[in-house]
């Protein structure tokens, strides 16, 4: 019985180690042999692009800004994702989507990349990266 136990333990140890090695090696093999990288970042990070925007908005002395997307409705993952990327880059300013209560508004022309007139607002500055700053009339 002791011999049987020993061999059972040995067989399972070999199988588990072999399987673990195959599992651990798989992504690395895919990476180097098949050139499949780890799931690359899809985050639309805007930190570097929004350095100027950060300094201009920081100078407004306003904790909160209205935020509009060029494509109204927040129906696409791109619009929502871009909001979070800009919010992350401009923190600690709070960007309030579609807010009517704030004096300044940030409009993201992420598709056309050029500022357009916004009803009820005057353009203050094109901040680059598709973002434009507006002030309520």
């Amino acid at each position: 019985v002791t011999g049987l136990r020993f061999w059972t333990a040995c067989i399972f140890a070999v199988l588990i180690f072999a399987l673990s090695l195959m599992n651990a090696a798989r992504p690395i093999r895919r990476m180097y042999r098949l050139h499949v990288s780890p799931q690359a970042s899809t985050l639309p990070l805007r930190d570097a692009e929004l350095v100027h925007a950060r300094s201009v908005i920081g100078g407004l002395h306003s904790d909160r800004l209205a935020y509009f997307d060029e494509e109204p409705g927040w129906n696409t993952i791109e619009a929502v994702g871009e909001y979070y990327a800009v919010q992350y880059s401009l923190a600690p300013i709070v960007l309030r989507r579609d807010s009517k209560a704030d004096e300044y508004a940030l409009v993201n022309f992420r598709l056309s990349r050029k500022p357009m007139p916004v009803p009820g607002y005057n353009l203050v500055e094109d901040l680059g990266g598709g973002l434009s700053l507006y002030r309520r009339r």
Partner: protein
Amino acid sequence: MRLAIGVLFSLAGPITLGWLLVRGLWPRSPFGLRASLGAGLGTGVIGAVYYLALLITRSPWWSLGISESALVAGIFWWGRRSTEKPSQSPLPDTAQILLLLLLVLAAIWTVASITATPHGQWDAMAVWNLKARFIYLSPSDPLARIMDPALWDTQPDYPLLLPSLVARGWQYAGTDTVVIPISLAVLFTASTVGIVFFGLRMLNRPLLSQLATAVLLGTPFFFRQGVSQYADVLVCCFVTSAIVLYCLHDASPDNARLPLLAGIAAGLAACTKNEGLLFVLVLAAGRLSVLAWRRFPSGAHREVMNLASGVAFGLLVLGAFKRLYSPPNPIVQGITGRVIADRIVDWTYHARILKAFAQKSFTFGEWWMCPLLLLIIHVLAVRWKSLAAPSRGWTTAALTTAGMLAGYYSVYLLSPYDLDWHLGTSLDRLLFQVWPAALVLYALLATEG
């Protein structure tokens, strides 16, 4: 230069405190386990102190001052305690080279994952690091900004332990560098692996500690998710710590302070994510069931008191946050008598959840081949004669792991969200949280006697 020194100091202090805390409460703890437990618990405790100070003062600089004062006081206090040398359990003589090879492969994969996603995954940017930036960068009252209704979909009811730790690290580094969240992610991931390996070795299961650790190291998703800069890896580390500590307590009940350490870990899990609160409830219920099954042996009262004392600090911080700041949880808010009555008898709903659990259990690890079946066969082969008379060591691990899975199942059943979306965006992370604990359970079950 300041960055490197800042990162080093932000981590070294809490790790030292954790080491001393584990040594003070458990003088005979072996070196590796003391280091692994200490890294996670010490960092968590300092993060929780910072978090509590932030709730009270609403200032990151006051919070830093208070947390670092507590750190220095803690190191001084616990440093004066027992100086007993850590015990060294003999190194297991089999398969060490294979384990080392697995460790190298896991490290390569971890570095590749970090390189591919240095800013972590989506929720790292939209939830965890965003809140850390509010704490670190706000000129006044970061909590008012975090709780702004405009940010309603950044999970404002989630506790702020991880953002507190990241903000604290940024204060040390002097800039909001990604190195801090990456370092924390690596710390908690490595700590979890160490707890599984050294914990099982401490339980006199050298070969099984190697096998369980091998399976963990051979789970690519564990490392990719670990460094995604989400809070799940913290929950995973604290859950694993508490379960391993209770297994050790069951193996040698003479050390009454292990439940205190387990309680600290469980309390920290509650401070990290809402699933952590579920873990506290499941752990408490599991232990009470075990004690009731054993007809409340002598020392049961003391064990319960120690567990409660350990959990108390984490629950205090969480309670202050929930009471003073947090909006209601949308899932809990959506649970009504009508929803419960409707969903419990909706068999298609049950079937969809069970199907997702079954499918994900075999695929979440991003394996070449899922090891689950092999582990189950191993357990059955070893225990087929004695399954009806289990040894006492594994009951807490089994009850808490099963309890957590049952809790997740109930949340999906009563969730107000679209079920497919909810399962698709969270189930793999929830299974990740309990995967090391499940491997500990496997190692305990696959041991005869």
